[in-house]
């Protein structure tokens, strides 16, 4: 079996300019003009079969030296061969243009829009190159290094999205007319109303089903959705820009606020990436504790997804059974970290505090409560005809389509595709734990729901094993380790870049960290699983009904804070 570097070597000199292997990852530099051909080859060639575009990262390399100012990094994953590859292209400041790869990977549509939004890099051939996270009339590109962060800009009226909607409806042979009601007193807006045009209605930004703030402009016919235009960015706080302003430890609190349903997993994912960059091995005890906290976080997140999903469907009771357990996990986390929601209690190299006495008893009692709660909920919904009809075949997506859209986590596994970073690219010795990866069959909301439900049971298994191992470790005083990590103040990884990811509740959470050798991170890009999972929403909801949309969004578990960053 050849390694990825050996496989790629013949390409060097052609489309690939250079190739290096650092931090256990393969990083290639490529010719920007040939990127479409290269990615198509990498995707279709059976030797590589890079079937997923994980992320597109823009970097303003003006502070790193080099000829061209901008870097664009395509992070590719081959789920079949278990390869990872970062393809780096550079483009000049004067004419920042790169061919668009949206035809190769569907998810690139949004990822390229984000890079365009943040850096002003133009993707030639992109069908709809608009800002993704910042508002339409925003001036400047905030992640460029010369962007004045103290400048203030007025937020104008929100975009009406009619231009996108018009294109979509025309593609379906439908006319667009927006009946304005409200203060306009029933007057017609744009276009002639003929009577059978789709009805334009806004869903969100504030609507009970959008957990966080999302907006969808819908064209409906009766209750059937003809076309949908999503708009992101209502929760965009410039997290990635803020991350550049502090030192490596000061980034940790920002990661809490990405997926606020399971903050611990974000902390751990970030620390893991920085540790990898520094070349630190954390102690086995800390690794086991991280596994326990990660899996508790996964349970917490899945409880937050499945419970409100049922509430969206009108079943209000199961929510309470699940949330009582979640509340107990919150209590444990509060006892350990002192905070209920944004823990920030992981440090690069370990943990800030030792465990409190009785932590494992608390965890054990939560796990004991979890099973009856899950059983109650399953009994209420698993064979419930109404639930079955509402969820089965709703928002179904095939494995191939899911991979094109960069689906990861439970949403990908629900399509029947067995891909879990804990098994496929194990970290913290996840491969030595006895647990199974839960997969669905149809990729509909029913499968997504139950993949999450059964994953909680698997997580409970992992926690039990990890606790047993932790207790079996020789009793090195925990406080000593904590002290060690506290003394670890100045973090300055060697110059370079690294992409590291972990399996969080929603999928693959990745951090692409660029260091210039100083104590401040030069650039951190967060690969948000929710963004990619949400990128297929248009194709999923078209032809569905408004009530299905509720179910689809609920089962995708889109977290506004993670999408918009």
């Amino acid at each position, binding site marked *: 079996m050849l390694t990825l570097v050996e496989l790629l070597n013949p390409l060097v000199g052609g489309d690939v300019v250079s190739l290096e292997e650092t931090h256990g990852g393969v990083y290639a530099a490529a010719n920007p003009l040939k990127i479409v051909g290269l990615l198509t080859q990498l995707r279709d060639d059976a030797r590589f079969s890079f079937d997923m575009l994980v992320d597109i990262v823009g970097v303003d390399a003006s502070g790193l030296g080099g000829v061209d100012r901008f870097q664009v990094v395509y992070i590719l994953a081959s789920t079949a061969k278990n390869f990872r590859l970062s393809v780096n292209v550079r483009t000049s400041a004067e004419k920042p243009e790169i061919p668009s790869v949206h035809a190769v990977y569907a998810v690139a549509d949004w990822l390229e829009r984000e890079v365009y939004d943040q850096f002003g890099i133009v993707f030639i051939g992109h069908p709809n190159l608009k800002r993704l996270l910042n508002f339409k009339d925003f001036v400047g590109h905030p992640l460029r290094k010369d962007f004045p962060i103290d400048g203030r800009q007025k937020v104008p009226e929100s975009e009406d999205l009619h231009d996108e909607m018009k294109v979509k409806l025309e593609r379906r042979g439908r006319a667009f007319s927006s009946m304005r009601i409200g203060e306009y007193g029933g007057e017609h807006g744009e276009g002639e109303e003929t009577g059978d045009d789709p009805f334009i209605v806004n869903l969100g930004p504030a609507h009970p089903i959008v957990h966080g703030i999302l907006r969808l402009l819908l064209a409906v016919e009766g*209750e059937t959705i003809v076309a949908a235009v999503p708009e992101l960015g209502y929760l965009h706080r410039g997290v990635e820009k803020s991350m550049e302003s502090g030192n490596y430890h000061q980034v940790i609190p920002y990661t809490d606020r990405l997926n606020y349903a399971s903050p611990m997993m974000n902390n751990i994912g970030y620390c893991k990436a920085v540790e990898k960059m520094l070349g630190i091995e954390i102690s086995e005890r800390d690794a086991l504790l991280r596994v326990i906290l990660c899996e508790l976080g996964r349970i917490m997140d899945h409880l937050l997804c499945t419970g409100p999903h049922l509430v969206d469907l009108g079943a209000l009771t199961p929510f309470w*059974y699940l949330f009582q357990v979640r509340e107990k996990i919150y209590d444990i986390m509060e006892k350990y970290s002192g905070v209920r929601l944004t823990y920030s209690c992981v440090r690069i190299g370990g943990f800030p505090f030792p465990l409190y006495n009785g932590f494992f008893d608390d965890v054990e009692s939560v796990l004991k409560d979890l099973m009856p709660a899950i059983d109650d909920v399953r009994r209420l919904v698993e064979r419930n005809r109404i639930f079955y009809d509402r969820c089965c075949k709703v928002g179904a997506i095939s494995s191939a389509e899911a991979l094109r859209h960069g689906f990861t986590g439970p949403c990908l596994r629900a399509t029947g595709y067995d891909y879990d970073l804990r098994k496929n690219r194990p970290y913290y010795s996840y491969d030595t734990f006895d647990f199974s990866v839960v997969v669905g069959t149809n990729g509909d909301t029913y499968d997504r729901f139950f993949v999450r439900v059964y994953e909680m049971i698997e997580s409970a298994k992992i926690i039990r094993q990890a606790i047993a191992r932790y207790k079996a470790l020789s009793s090195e005083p925990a406080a000593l380790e904590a002290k060690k990590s506290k003394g670890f103040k100045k973090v300055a990884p060697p110059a370079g870049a690294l992409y590291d990811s972990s399996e969080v509740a929603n999928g693959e959470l990745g951090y692409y960290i660029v260091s210039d050798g100083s104590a401040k991170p030069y650039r951190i890009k967060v690969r948000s699983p929710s963004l990619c999972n949400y990128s297929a929403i248009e194709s999923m909801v078209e032809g569905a009904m408004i009530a299905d949309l509720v179910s689809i969004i609920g089962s995708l578990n889109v977290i506004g804070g993670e999408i918009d960053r």
Partner: protein
Amino acid sequence: MTNFYGRIDWIFLGLTTAKAVFAWGLTLGFILVNIFLERKICALIQDRVGPNRANILGVRLFGFVLNFADAVKLLFKEDITPSFVNKTYYLMAPPIIMTIALMGMSVVPFADDLVVGSLVIPMRVLDLNVGFLFILAITSLSVYSLVIGGFGSNSKYPLFAAMRSCAQMISYEIVMGLSLVGLVMVYGAVHLQRLVVAQGEMLFGFIPKWGVVVQPLGCVLFCIAALAELNRTPFDLPEGESEIIGFHVEYSSMKFALFFMAEYANIFVAAAIITTLFFGGWQLPWLSTETIKSNAPVVLRACAIVALTAAAVAAYLLHRLYSKRRYQWKDLREKEGLVFYGVLACVGVLSIMAMLLPGFTPLSPIMASGLALLLQAGIFIVKSFIICFIVVWIRWTLPRLRYDQLMALGWKIMLPLGIANIVVTGIVVLLFP
């Protein structure tokens, strides 16, 4: 209003007013009861405590007092009329639905005719021959309120709700009507009092001939259709708070509250109608009015024993509840138990008196009739209460249907079943007259 001689019949007028006050008072009272049930049962099902703070001088009545706090809150809330609404329609909708909710009870008999000397007093506000046809006609009017409110709000989501409720009402109205045809075939009456009297007969000599026994499928269909007419889960699409927020998005304060009061009033009216049509109405099983009257002392004594036992059990449960209470309030709420114990003691004393006082002499005819009236009205209320309980229970158990599934259920499943029920009932009635 006028008697045979053209004069105003003051007795008739007074009695009708009294009955109307009773019927509407019962409906309005059940609004509070239903809201209380909704909160407390939901808390029970969801493993929560439910309302337990609001109190008047320490008396909380297990959270019932919260209703009064709610009423005060809703009355004093700012009443906003959005600038974009169509004012006429917008203001019309809440009163319409409340009026219709209160009209339903006017034909439902809540006890057997009271015979005082030569005077026969029918125990229902209106003595209409058309019976349940009147109810079907009246309840189907309530959709107008939802449509007018949704349309008059001049907003997109209420318009969805108006559309949904319109389609839903039309579909389930038909099933509702069809499910009652079998009942008419069996009992040969549409007049509600005659229906209830007919349900007092026995089948094979020992099974009460209730509607649910002779028309089980009709009963199920009617109950489902009634649930759909009530806009309750799993058919609460016009409200659909997670999808389209509901037809009352633009309403606030008491206008908003009227919609909900009407919903809870409708639950009681529906429960009363279901009781009347399928569960024997005011009929006590195996105890006809004549039996009660002729055995009045025994019946009274039995009632007293039941009341005494119930009071004892309630006192024991209360004692257990108060003895294991976790919190110390350190205010008047500590003394709340005394009120309950006082009431229970009164009930106990009254029952003992009822057991001892009359001896074994027969009661006077008026007292016997009064006893029958009280018992029958009581059993009618208890039956309705149980059905209200089930309606609330269903809400906290089932998810919501989707719009097309709702239509499919109505037209593809329930309509054919309703027709099949008529055919089968017809054959059975012809073969075994």
